[in-house]
């Protein structure tokens, strides 16, 4: 298991380095594009261009440029946004990360709990009235666009019913956990729910079909022949085996969301997370910020995939011995 973990993280590091090289090549070595002009932003003056040239060593050979970029990113951490006149990129990301993590982690807990419960119940009640009902709820959850749901939630909780039922809902925005835990949770409550609705629906459906398959397996018949109770069969045998694919799905979704896919939710609820940071950077063509967030996103996707593989190996003994 330890060897497996080390091997897996070795692979993750390799993938990360490869991605950074790839991103570097796209940003600095796309033929026919002048990276200095791109980085400096629209209508940059000669002085800025020269500064960019020097800072990124654009007259140097590629490997040196790569090393310089890495140095700016990780050693000196002084990558600067030229569009925003001298705002440092790394601190911006460092500030945005806790927001996104808070949002995605909370929502993930919600959707895993709700999705797994719904999927399991639907499988347990297959053939009964409750099963199609749960499936229907799941489909509705899947089909509602997040930004629309977010806007409706805001409309209801922030203006229409804000004076009556929802008077306890704080204004939009983010309060750090360390500053005021209650406010942190309260402000994130509706973003969590909104984001979780979609994923809970997906997870419930996937888990339900996985469990239906598992319940037809021979090992379930064996368990029944042993005199094991239906509930134990459902949880200990069918659910336990069905969780394996759910975990890999979770890893992908979680990585992508932390990496910036929670963008819509962040924008709708005014949360200054990584998604929103990328979004504004894209609007301003703020290349250094985009560079930073892309690498950050890659880091989280790769990291969560590596973690998933470890959890996977812990869940499925067959994987451990390859």
């Amino acid at each position, binding site marked *: 298991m330890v060897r497996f973990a080390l091997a897996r993280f070795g692979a993750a590091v390799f993938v990360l380095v490869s991605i950074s090289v790839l991103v570097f090549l796209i940003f600095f070595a796309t033929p026919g594009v002048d990276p200095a002009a791109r980085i400096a932003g629209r209508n940059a003056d000669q002085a800025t261009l020269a500064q960019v040239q020097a800072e990124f060593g654009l007259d140097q050979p590629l490997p040196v440029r790569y090393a310089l970029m890495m140095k700016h990113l990780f050693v000196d951490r002084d990558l600067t946004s030229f569009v925003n006149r001298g705002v440092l990129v790394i601190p911006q990301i460092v500030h945005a990360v806790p927001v996104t993590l808070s949002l995605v982690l909370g929502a993930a807990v919600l959707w895993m709990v709700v999705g797994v419960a719904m999927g399991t119940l639907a499988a347990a009640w297959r053939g009964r009235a409750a099963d199609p009902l749960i499936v229907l709820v799941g489909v509705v959850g899947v089909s509602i666009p997040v930004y629309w749901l977010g806007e409706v939630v805001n409309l209801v909780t922030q203006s229409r019913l804000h004076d009556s039922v929802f008077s306890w809902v704080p204004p939009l925005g983010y309060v750090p956990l360390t500053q005021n835990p209650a406010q942190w949770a309260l402000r994130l409550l509706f973003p969590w729910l909104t984001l979780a609705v979609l994923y809970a629906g997906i997870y419930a459906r996937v888990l339900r079909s996985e469990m239906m398959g598992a319940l037809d397996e021979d*090992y379930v018949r064996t368990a029944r*022949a042993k005199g094991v109770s239906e509930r134990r069969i459902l949880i200990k045998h069918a659910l336990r085996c069905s969780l394996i694919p759910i975990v890999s799905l979770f890893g992908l979704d979680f990585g992508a969301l932390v990496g910036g896919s929670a963008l819509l939710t962040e924008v709708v609820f005014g949360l200054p997370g990584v998604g929103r940071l990328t979004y504004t950077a894209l609007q301003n063509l703020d290349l250094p910020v985009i560079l930073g967030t892309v690498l950050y996103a890659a880091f989280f996707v790769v990291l969560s995939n590596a973690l998933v593989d470890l959890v996977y190996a812990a869940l499925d003994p067959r994987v451990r011995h390859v």
Partner: protein
Amino acid sequence: MSEPLLEVEDLRVSFRSRRGTAVAVDGLSFSLAPGEVLGVVGESGSGKSVSMMSMLGLIRDPNCTVEGSARFRGSDLVGMADKDLRVLRGRDIAMIFQDPMTSLTPVYTVGWHIAEQIRVHQSMSKARARARAVELLAEVGIPDPARRIDDYPHQFSGGMRQRAVIAMGLANNPSLLIADEPTTALDVTTQAQVLDLLRRLRRDHGSSIILITHDMGVVSQLADRVLVMYAGRAAEEGPRQEVFHHPRHPYTWGLLGSVPRARAPRVRRLPAIPGSPASALAVPSGCAFAPRCRFAHDQCAERPPLAGADHLDACWLPRDRRHELRHSLDEVATAAGDPGQQSIIVPATEEFE
């Protein structure tokens, strides 16, 4: 005779579907004495598995109806509440299935499975259950059981897995073990070992065994009595010696005709009998075997009862002429240059067109 351990009477299992009602088991009756080994043979689809699983409440298909009775130590398994049946399953009646590859939950160790079997029915500490699991694995002949107990099913070979499954079945000293083709998926050597294990089980624990198989050879080695099933019904039932040496039903003749004579290489599966087995969706109202039987006559349009004292059969042919009739077939076969192989039964078309 002592009180039977299991007495099945007129068991009927049917599945409703859009294409009609499939009758998988159609009025099956037999009884099993304590310590007895009953071999159940018959072609694929003759209802062997369904009859056993229906008694144990293992068929969860909502379209399935089970009628009749199956009294185990006097209490009827058919219609018993699942929570009562569950107490019997795995404790008094253990059932093991054909494919050892898929019959263990892949994410748990072999020891976990055995411990689960023990702790479902007895309150025993985890440590003691584990110790008992090691004992059981040793008993079924797993080498180095104290170490192998922590292996996962995929680390066991097919034969070892089937042995582990048997160990699981034995965990609570069941008085009845139902083994549904326990050796079909295994190679010859492993097969012999597993059969040996079953034999020992009967000797040491005095358990009754119902052994479902396609393999007449297996039956002849192990069974005290033999039940021959065709289309969900009993065609013939009796002591092994009787059924093997004086078979009475033309279907049994077909099965036995296909068993090679002494010294010939062993055939492991029943070879195909000409014609196809009766479909469960349309079992003939008369004798189910009539469409494939060379001796079918007018009376066969009516369903023959299972008649006899200790050796029973369901056939209208006059009892005293059976030997002669069977013999006549052998001669026909020999004349045709096909000594005793698959020659007894002819396809339905010859008789009915």
